[in-house]
């Protein structure tokens, strides 16, 4: 198994949300990685490859004008009331995989990106910052906003179910 191919595919698959396109883009990214190896200055090979994968995917998303995925998400449409008595933690504990997958897929791409890297690849803030080319502070705030958004969507849908 080529090292880091699994991480590369998972990231691409989540970013472009299509299995076929993800495969094409990973192949493309690996070729670029091979051609532009002079851009590799040592260090974390995984972060370097993933950075190329995410750039390839974001370029593709822009070119294909994929709606809603690269758009900024509108600032909090509703401010969730912190109601201490609602067992939202309980709701979140009962979320099933399919609902979670849907909710994560619907997040804007830049929140999907940090969440996938953090929760599925379990990378550190520093590694995520290197891959996405953003400051660590932005990693933290993107994670916070992404999680909040995800939480709101999930709680809403779980409540709708019950």
């Amino acid at each position: 198994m080529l090292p880091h191919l699994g991480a590369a595919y998972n990231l691409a698959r989540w970013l472009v949300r299509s299995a076929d396109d993800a495969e094409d883009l990973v192949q493309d990214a690996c070729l670029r990685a091979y051609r532009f190896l002079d851009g590799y200055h040592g260090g974390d090979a995984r972060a370097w490859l993933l950075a190329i994968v995410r750039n390839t995917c974001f370029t593709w998303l822009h070119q294909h004008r994929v709606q809603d995925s690269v758009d900024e998400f509108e600032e909090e449409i509703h401010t969730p009331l912190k109601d201490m008595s609602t067992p939202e933690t309980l709701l979140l504990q009962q979320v099933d995989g399919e609902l979670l997958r849907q909710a994560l897929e619907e997040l804007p791409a830049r929140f999907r990106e940090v969440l996938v890297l953090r929760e599925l690849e379990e990378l550190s803030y520093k590694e995520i910052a290197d891959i996405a080319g953003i400051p660590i502070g932005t990693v933290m705030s993107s994670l916070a906003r992404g999680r909040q958004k995800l939480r709101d969507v999930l709680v809403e849908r779980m409540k709708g179910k019950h």
Partner: protein
Amino acid sequence: MLHAYVDGELDLVRQMEIETHLKACRACTAAYEEHRALQSALRGAGLRYRTPAQLEARVRAAVGAARTHAPREMPRRVVWGSPLGWLAAAAAIVLVVFLGWKILPSWRPGNEQLASEVVAGHVRSLLASHLLDVPSTDQHTVKPWFAGKLDFSPPVGDFKEQGFELVGGRLDYLDGRAIAALVYRRRQHTINLFVWPAQTSAQEDEEASSRQGYNLIHWKQAGMNFWAVSDLNAAELAQFAGLVRAGPRPPAAR
């Protein structure tokens, strides 16, 4: 800040500050618990996509095709001193890194695939709970076990006194053939020592490398290939390799 805490990204002092605050603040505790619930839901839901089996073959083929073109152009451009020549040269050199290596300039190309197989074999042995076919700390049990299963007899030594305990052996498959895997323990670390006959009787000195966080050492001796792989640190693995090279101790010394 709470997110950095959930993610274990805070230093100890800040971490303790947050813990103290959480004890006193219900709102933050509730938010913390939600994030924890969300995190474990995300991690436990099998959301990570599996890489399709054909993708690796595709990528290898594509990179392989690109590679066969590159070397032909390279020498001319280097002679011209064009930046592209440098680029191609740099690319060819660092390709090695792309394939997973961090160090090792002296590594020969044929070993690249092998090193990857060795690491894969090591990882597989730990994952599949198939570390041992013959669990025994006795070299005189392990060595005969291989007779009849392999067309060669691997040298089996126990280095318990030096802190590398033999725990057993198993058959494995590497380099297109059945081979002997000897398993040693150093504290909590497992060492796989893969042994199989070499094509030539030439001796080769030890070469150390690391990939995917594992340390590897290989050498050729007495017509055998030796590959040691472990998550043990490089220095101690080198010590282990030295012991193996020196050969099995006679039973009286144990």
